[in-house]
């Protein structure tokens, strides 16, 4: 990440601050880059050792929300309301960009599971239909179809269904692993990225 990218990401993440405060914060990081460069470090190197600019911005935003308003007037109804709206908008961002896609993916997984699970069930039904017709002919008719054809078609669909379920099992494991990796990525706030 270049100096330019780092600073612009940070600036964007510094919500809820006055312009003056934002300038102060930006100054600290600009100075950090300047002094790092004077020591002969590359922009990439400095940005990496600083950490994730979005996470840094978030920690400022949280601090701002928890501070009492200026002027020593204590916490007023307006400031509480404003903090509430700000935190809702932060939450809203998470809901739209994190929870939304996540729920979509979970829905997709459930749909795929239903489709995969229905295949072996349908296969078994077809496979057992000649048997059912033999035992209870008054309830079940093959409508003139060849029992052998039904048996092999049923066996084929069942096999396909078992493969589909195994595939879904693997896909679910991958899904869980990737979700865990994403959560871990989000949690890496203080530890240095190596």
């Amino acid at each position, binding site marked *: 990440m270049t100096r330019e990218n780092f600073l612009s990401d940070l600036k964007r993440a510094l919500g809820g601050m006055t312009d003056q405060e934002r300038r102060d914060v930006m100054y600290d990081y600009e100075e*950090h880059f300047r002094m790092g460069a004077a020591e002969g470090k590359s922009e990439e190197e400095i940005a990496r050792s*600083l950490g994730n600019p979005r996470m840094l911005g978030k920690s400022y935003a949280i601090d701002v929300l928890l501070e009492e308003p200026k002027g020593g007037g204590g916490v007023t109804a307006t400031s509480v309301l404003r903090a509430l709206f700000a935190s809702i908008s932060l939450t809203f961002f998470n809901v739209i960009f994190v929870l939304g896609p996540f729920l979509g993916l979970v829905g997709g997984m459930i749909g795929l599971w239903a489709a995969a699970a229905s295949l072996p069930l349908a296969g078994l039904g077809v496979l057992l239909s000649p048997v059912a017709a033999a035992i209870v002919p008054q309830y079940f008719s093959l409508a003139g179809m060849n029992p052998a054809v039904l048996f092999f078609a049923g066996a084929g669909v069942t096999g396909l269904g078992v493969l589909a379920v195994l595939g879904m099992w693997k896909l679910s494991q991958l899904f869980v692993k990737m979700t865990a990796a994403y959560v871990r990525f989000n949690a890496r706030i203080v530890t240095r990225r190596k």
Partner: protein
Amino acid sequence: MNIQFKKGVLELCVLVVLCRKDFYGYELVQTISRNIDIAEGTVYPLLRRLMKEGYFTTYIQESAEGPARKYYQITEKGKEYQKVLLDEWRRFVSGVNTLIGKEAAA
């Protein structure tokens, strides 16, 4: 090490270091990160928060090499808070060491 734990200890480290002398931001961050493995950027939000709480003040001073630097200076309130934190830390460490000692002896 646990992230929250590191964050708490970081506050103590910043105050202890600033009790010795005034530092400018970059120098302070380098001093901390030479000894503790953290993302260097996380020191700045901490500095801002501690300053808002009145534990130290800042002043700008011209430097011989390059532009002016922002220095951090500890206040009386900061010194007192540092004492409290240091005391808590020592009690915590001695407690942990006692437990570890018992564990090793058992």
